[in-house]
């Protein structure tokens, strides 16, 4: 089936070359980091996780968001999602590969990463994160591939894929829950130490994933003959809408608990993010933009007339996607480290090299996504044609 990806228009190859160029530039930045250590990044003793782990966290969410098409289609026989289910699964594959890359580039000693397997440590949440992330990746590759192959041959997918599909649902919930557990089980980090962290992660994931999928549907309609279906996109938009509202609601709950109880070690982080702390406020404009984007996006999606507007829909989705990225990518990780456990304020900003490596990983993900989506849409065109 892969041979399909080798035939494409001039624009297709131009896009591939562009992605490869970004990957190459990022690879150079990574070589420097590999040789000289993580000194090339903006991370510090106080803010020991930065852009890499933040983007990892966000993308785990986008990957988990794919389950929002799998559940309606496979559990509730929602036929309208028939055409886009494969897109959700392939989006998860691309995101998970990016997640694994982000973990690897964040390691100080990447050549030793197999120590995680050599000395399995069941008390460490990272151990479980490794299991569920790789498990979910494996499931999505197998399911996506087998189902698409069956569609191409116009036969039913093999029966053994069904239990795997059902298994992939708890795995999707699992990857983001365990990712939240990485943070919310740590005793000294007030911003993360909240039971609402995992639900909040899931809510923003179920918004960001489908929102991105809607945007991808627009690209598919523009560049291929395959139509994912306007009705399916509308249902997805409703899912995005309620998921982002749930995320905002959880955030309000968090703010209430933190500010009404007034416990300083919990309050300091939100103060830093929303209002600035002891004169440091690098993230304040970002955080407010993020929440405004998410709120406006939710309003645009909840009003039927605006949701049905074909020009506005991708913009609303982009607002929610970017808002969720700021909330989770930018604020969540830095916010947990500022102020430090000793109440020192060390701010964090990624360096150019760090951003370059990050962009290269996104380019890698987009390359995988492009190839997988090309397979999916071409097969679907063939079958219909």
């Amino acid at each position: 089936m892969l041979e399909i990806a080798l035939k494409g228009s001039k624009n297709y190859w131009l896009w591939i070359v562009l992605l490869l160029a970004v990957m190459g530039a990022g690879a150079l930045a990574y070589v420097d980091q590999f040789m000289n250590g993580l000194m090339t990044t903006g991370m510090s003793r106080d803010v020991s996780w930065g852009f890499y782990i933040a983007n990892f966290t966000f993308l785990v969410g986008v990957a988990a968001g794919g389950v929002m098409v799998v559940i309606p289609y496979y559990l509730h026989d929602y036929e309208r999602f028939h055409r886009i289910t494969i897109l959700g699964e392939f989006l998860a594959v691309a995101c998970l590969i990016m997640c694994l890359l982000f973990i690897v580039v964040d390691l100080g000693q990447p050549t030793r990463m197999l120590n995680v397997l050599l000395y399995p440590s069941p008390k460490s949440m990272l151990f479980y994160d490794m299991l569920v992330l790789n498990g979910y990746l494996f499931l999505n590759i197998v399911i996506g591939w087998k189902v698409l192959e069956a569609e191409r041959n116009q036969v039913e997918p093999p029966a053994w894929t069904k239990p795997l599909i059902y298994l992939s649902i708890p795995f999707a919930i699992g990857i983001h829950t365990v990712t939240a557990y990485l943070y919310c089980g740590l005793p000294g980090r007030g911003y993360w130490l909240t039971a609402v962290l995992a639900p909040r992660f899931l809510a923003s994931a179920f918004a960001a994933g489908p929102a991105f999928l809607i945007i991808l549907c627009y690209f598919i309609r523009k560049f291929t003959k395959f139509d994912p279906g306007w009705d399916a996109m509308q249902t997805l938009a409703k899912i995005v809408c309620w998921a982002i509202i749930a995320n905002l609601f959880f955030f309000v709950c968090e703010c209430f608990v933190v500010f009404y109880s007034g416990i300083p070690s919990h309050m300091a982080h939100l103060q830093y993010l929303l209002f600035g702390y002891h004169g440091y406020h690098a993230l304040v404009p970002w955080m407010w933009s993020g929440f405004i984007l998410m709120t406006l996006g939710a309003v645009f999606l909840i009003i039927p007339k605006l949701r049905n507007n074909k020009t506005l829909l991708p913009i609303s989705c982009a607002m929610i996607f970017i808002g969720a990225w700021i909330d989770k990518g930018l604020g969540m990780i830095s916010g947990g480290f500022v102020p430090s456990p000793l109440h020192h304020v060390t701010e964090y900003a990624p360096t150019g090299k760090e951003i370059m490596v990050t962009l290269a990983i996104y380019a890698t993900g987009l390359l995988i996504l492009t190839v997988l989506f090309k397979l999916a849409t071409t097969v679907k065109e063939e079958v219909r044609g």
Partner: protein
Amino acid sequence: MMEKSRRSFLKVAGIAAIGLGAAPAMTFSASDSHGTAQAVKGKNHETLTAHRWGMVIDTNKLNEEVAANIVKACHKAHNVPDFNHEVDEDKFPNTRPVNHKQEVKWIWEEEFHNAFPDKEDEFLAEKFKHLPFLATCNHCKNAPCVKACPTQATFKRADGIVLMDFHRCIGCRFCMAACPYGSRSFNFRDPRPFIGEVVPEFPTRTKGVVEKCNLCAERLARGKQPHCVEASEGAIVVGDLEDPESEVRVLLNENYSIRRKQALGTEPSVYYVV
């Protein structure tokens, strides 16, 4: 042809199976020869042992000068890099400028409200505002860093000391996020250009691994007191917390002491007499 390839496959599979079978045995023998507390004890009768090592810092006996000496003694003996050290350009050409936020430290001075942020007080006794408080690894009974480590590179010895295997650490820094005391440092770069004079008794580290205070486990094994104790002019005492007769327990009995962030349940083994 078919037969042959199958035979060669079986051969490879057999070798692989032997390898898999041998791995646990190899790890076992490796961990055996690395010297647990007991193995050292057998060789050296002077070894200082405890059921649970603890430290008592008498803050009244500390002043800026003594505190600075303690920090210096510890960092020098453990080859902790000093980012203010002038790099020898002949030995380490093209060393890039340092980012002081990426520093490494095992024991250092903090102000009271930073060492004890949960005990911040508007009307704190005047003397506490000027005393140096030494912060270091607490060798917690319930150490969050030990739990977090995905490779057991950070581990807890039977005698309570939290140690690190610098050769196993993958540099994921989960332990740094887990530690509520900011006691851990990451080698963001090769530390060697910033070590004045390498002390051969203790290994230097490589870039990409985490490190922290080891309560001078290497000295206790040889019957010597930790460097901080020796440099402290009587302000720091280490001993067996579980022995009621030990010096640390006598001190804790006779003085009021506090621990950092006790409410978190990590059970720090470092006590501050105030």
